[in-house]
């Protein structure tokens, strides 16, 4: 569904991505893990068209999308939940969600909009309860749910998430990841970028490890969890799995 080949990007003289290649197949949850500053956020921003690629290709549904403006990429069905939520704190929860359907304003009618809203409320009950509340008054976890809900309003086929567990209470991280599992079950394809490797690999099918703008390891989530390198660098020393195979 998504194919990235030799992607290079950066900021000014700074080269952040030094030739990244990865792919996401339909229905898969793929995690990109790596330390702070490895290039994870840059990667998602470049795929989403927020940042211009210096070279390389991004193919979404067999169509080249690198160089396309961000809004066209969203309309194609590839939507980003940015790091740090970036919700509109002075608007209500409902208004935030409706804005997420911005790209559908010409094609879809009110009924289908309401249906989407209903689906988001179904997924996150708390957002229904707080629908008239200002988004800025929500807790960190609720804001994250709102950001995900808002992205879902664009009816994406590929959802890209940047650090969904960042700045969220550990208990709420569990909730958010439960949601990701549910979204996966509903058939949504997800590309996930995380520092919280343990949480990400627990839901992912496959993963890539990114270090200083290059992929150094890739494999199934299971393989990555079993890699001593990943265990030492990202999962914590005490990490052990009892292998049943």
């Amino acid at each position, binding site marked *: 569904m998504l194919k990235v*080949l030799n992607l290079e990007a950066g900021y000014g003289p700074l080269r952040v991505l030094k*030739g990244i*290649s990865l*792919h996401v197949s339909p229905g898969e949850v793929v995690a990109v893990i790596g330390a702070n500053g490895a290039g994870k956020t840059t990667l998602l921003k470049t795929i989403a068209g927020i940042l211009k690629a210096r070279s390389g290709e991004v193919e979404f549904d067999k169509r080249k999308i690198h160089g396309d403006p961000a809004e066209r990429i969203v309309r194609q069905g590839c939507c980003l939940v940015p790091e740090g939520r970036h919700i509109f704190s002075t608007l209500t929860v409902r208004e935030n969600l409706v804005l997420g359907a911005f790209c559908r304003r010409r094609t879809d009618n009110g009924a289908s909009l309401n249906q989407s809203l209903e689906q988001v409320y179904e997924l996150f009950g708390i957002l229904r309860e707080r629908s008239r509340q200002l988004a800025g008054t929500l807790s960190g976890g609720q804001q994250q749910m709102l950001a995900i809900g808002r992205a879902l309003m664009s009816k994406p086929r590929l959802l890209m998430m940047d650090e969904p567990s960042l700045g969220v209470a550990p208990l709420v991280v569990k909730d958010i990841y439960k949601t990701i599992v549910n979204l996966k079950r509903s058939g949504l394809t997800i590309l996930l970028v995380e520092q919280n490797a343990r949480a990400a690999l627990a839901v992912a099918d496959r993963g890539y490890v990114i270090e200083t703008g290059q*992929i150094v390891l890739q494999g199934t989530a299971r393989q990555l969890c079993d890699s*001593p390198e990943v265990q030492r660098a990202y999962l914590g020393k005490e990490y052990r799995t009892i*292998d049943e195979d």
Partner: protein
Amino acid sequence: MGQPIPYNPKCEMIARDELEQLQIERLQSTLNRVYRSVAFYRTAFDAHKVNLERIKDLRALRELPFTTKQDLQKSYPYDMFAVPLRDIVRIHTTSGTTGQPIVVGYTHNDLRSWRECAARLLTAAGVTEHDVVQIALHYSLFADGFGFHQGAERVGASVIPASLATSVAKQIIIMRDFKTTVLISTPSHALNIVASLDEVQVHRERLHLRLGLFGGERWSDPLRRQVEEQLRIISTDTYGPTEVMGPGVAGECHLHQGLHLNEDHFIVELIDPKTAEPVGAGEEGELVLTTITKEGFPLVRYQTGDITRISPDPCPCGRTFVRMARVMGRTDDLILFQGVGFFPSQIEEVLAGIDSISPFFQIVLDQDRGVETIEIRVEISDKIPFLDEVKTIETLRLQVAKRIKTVLDVEPKVTLVEPKSLRALDPPGRVIDRRPG
């Protein structure tokens, strides 16, 4: 009956464009890793002024330097490992008959991929959970026995690690009593079994054998037919040098039209061994393999020394991986004898240390009732005038045989010949191979 299903259809029947994406992703991460963690590759890439960021497609692989068997021997024991030793969970070595053995380390994930690759080729050969698999291969240090063993367990078969430690007679008794359905061995060992059936007075009818998986030495179509007819089995050819992984690199499917090479784990190139340039489609060349999933012992552009052909046409079985022909020869003068390789130069070295014989010799390889035999003809030195006593000659003969045993692991038949009778031989005439095929 429908088409048999591959062990992992998602991988083995992958569309070529998807495979290409997978290969480039895995190649790039492998290269980034070996450059960071293997001194040999860092030095080699720097010396060739390789910029890894320029490796943007599979063709760019050609910019990278080759890795040779000598490179691996020089790195004895651990210099080629790409992970710290604490991450290695298994160590195998090559026989080391041709010099320093090559030591290969496997991580937990390497063992997992290996198991899967071996399971794929066993499944392709027709092995199922209903089979009783007897593995008559060396287990000590070598990778072959273990590779098939793990794969067969993964498939769910009942595995008998018969190894080669047991005599052929006992091998046959096990085969009869345990109702073995699949034999895994070298082709010559299979012939050995055929030849010994009468001796142990076991009729073929008493055996349950239906399949044979063979590898580890060169064999030919006539030999294959002989094994198939006499054991009444369907045989399958397998390929997998230890340094690359072990059994599981490639294997035939039930159609027997070449060995499917597991391209999601290895990138294949075929080069002219003289020019190192890629050969044209369908031409013979030296097989060069790059591992793209191995963590412990990754290889970049490894020259296997094996001559083969590659067919990229899709196989009617549905697998999309390219197929290699059975190994047709070697780029060097390596001789494979009873599954172990050696160079004539090694015999030369051994003989050089013995007085009363000249450095001229001849190697004669043959087959006797299916068993590979070797005879070394050695010229007696003309500088020793009184070498006419039978006892002296016999002592000399035994001394030579013993020395050669240190190389070959078996005592060859040694024939002493008249002085000056062998010295006119060119190097090609030094080896006579009468083995069929």
